[in-house]
């Protein structure tokens, strides 16, 4: 029986028919999606912190307004994604609990500090840029609610990426101090951005199954290469450099070659030893714990009102 269901399921996937929440699905498909979507949602929420860090210090009112709108978008992405994950039978509170207890992960990039205004430009250009590279294929993910959420997410992310590039473009035309600030930010964020695509293909055990289920469409290394190729050209427009002495166009491959990634650092940050892992998680836990009385009150009030309405009817 199970096998017949699995056959029908895989057949649908092969025919590019979307899987919807009430359809039969293998338990492992469900769990893989919960892990992936919740991890993505957590990344949006944790990702608000390094950028929220600069809202009160934004250097002009226009930049302040744009940054507020952008960080608010990230909260909205978190919301769509938590909702998409909820259709798989897990509650938002359970997902928060997994985040707060360290059971669920989020993108390691947000464990790096945002130290200057130029970081707002680089986070938009490189971090959101890498995210888009990862996420555009997810708009065709086999799971319907995830794919639909990603369509909206990607539209906004592409605006974020352009505003980030524009911040850097203005800095590149600015004073010597501003250009230094921008180059320093690029130097700090470049390698962590490359790590956002995840481990090398031969060390990414879930990839094959995820590609078969069309949760994933391209391998980590394919997407990483595409990202390097794009950024290596864009950085020329800015007149800055990427901090990689091995970066070089390879005519034969039709791609840029690039230097080795420090995977030790990657795994250290994943395991909780990045510069801001503790701060980020603590900030989220604090918001959650200190908000408990607010949520209790809202619930008590809603129940009271519902009862009054019932009594009146």
């Amino acid at each position, binding site marked *: 029986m199970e096998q017949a269901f699995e056959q029908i399921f895989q057949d649908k996937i092969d025919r590019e028919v979307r899987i919807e929440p009430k359809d039969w699905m293998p338990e492992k498909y469900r769990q893989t999606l919960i892990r992936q979507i919740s991890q993505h949602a957590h990344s949006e929420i944790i990702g*608000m912190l390094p950028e929220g860090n600069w809202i009160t*210090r934004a250097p002009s009112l226009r930049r302040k307004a744009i940054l507020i709108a952008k*960080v608010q978008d990230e909260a909205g992405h978190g919301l769509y994604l938590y909702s998409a994950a909820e259709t798989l039978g897990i509650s938002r509170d359970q997902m928060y609990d997994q985040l707060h207890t360290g059971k669920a992960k989020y993108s390691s990039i947000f464990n790096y500090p945002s130290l200057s*205004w130029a970081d707002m430009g680089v986070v938009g250009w490189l971090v959101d840029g890498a995210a888009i590279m990862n996420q555009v294929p997810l708009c065709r993910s086999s799971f319907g609610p995830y794919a639909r959420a990603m369509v909206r997410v990607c539209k906004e992310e592409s605006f974020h990426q352009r505003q980030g590039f524009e911040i850097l473009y203005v800095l590149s035309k600015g004073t010597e101090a501003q250009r230094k600030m921008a180059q320093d930010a690029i130097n700090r964020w470049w390698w962590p951005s490359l790590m956002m695509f995840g481990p090398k293909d031969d060390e990414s055990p879930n990839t094959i199954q995820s590609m078969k289920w069309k949760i994933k469409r391209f391998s980590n290394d394919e997407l990483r290469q595409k990202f390097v190729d794009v950024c290596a050209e864009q950085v020329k427009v800015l007149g800055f450099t990427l901090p990689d002495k091995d970066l070089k166009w390879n005519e034969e491959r039709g791609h840029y070659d690039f230097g080795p990634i420090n995977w030790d650092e990657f795994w250290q940050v994943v395991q909780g030893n990045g510069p801001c892992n503790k701060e980020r998680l603590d900030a989220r836990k604090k*918001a959650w714990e200190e*908000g408990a009385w*607010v949520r209790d*009150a809202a619930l008590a009030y809603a129940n009271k009102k519902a009862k009054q309405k019932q009594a009146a009817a």
Partner: protein
Amino acid sequence: MATMKNEIDFLLHLADNALIIGHRNSEWCGHGPILEQDIAITNIALDYIGQARNFYQHAAELINRHPIGIDITQTGNDIVLPATEDSLAYLRDVREFKNLLITEIPNGDWAHTTLRLFLLSEFEMQLFTHLLQHPDAQVAAIAEKSIKEVSYHVKWSQDWVLRLGDGTEESKQRMQAAIEAIWAYTGELFIQPEYATAACLNYAAIQDVWNKKVSAVFEEAGLNIPSKTFIQKGGAEGMHTEHLGYILAEMQYLQRAYPNSEW
């Protein structure tokens, strides 16, 4: 010329109010108690930054058109000319800011934040309604646009006052504590600044409506208006709490550290 100086000062007062309360509300971004409410308070902060920009831009236009003989600062410091929305927001110091004290006091907990917003936005609703009759069409237009946003701020913050006032025992205590802490800053709302000379403004009428609206919500929520009525005032004239200096130090840091740069 006196009339022009008054209008410029009044515009700066409105702009500073919006900028400083926007700054305070934006401090919640990423730290709210509920994700949907984090989005709401951040959105409200964005509305305020937008209002501040509209008022500063208009003030800058008037300053640039009438630069001679107008000392628009209270300390006699020269204003940077030509004025822009950013020079007005980023290059004036504490004594030049004309925002009401209620906008600059720290956020406190969610009860303090939502109550402050409720008290302020009920006031703004009335003030902006009066400004629809302002002889300067641009002021009236900004007021009209702002009213659309403020109506939502009133509704959102009022709902929180009711929810917390009539929620749990703890939330009621916290909301009542917020009222005790913030009440002393509400009197300043109705002291007509010397430069608020437009004939369309009637602060006594604003206070009258405000009293009725606020009392009605407090009564529904089972909250008490404090009996002590001492008023903290001075913000509109540039006499601030110690908090404003820290807000400006943070907000203005890049413009001060890297002068004459484009961002």
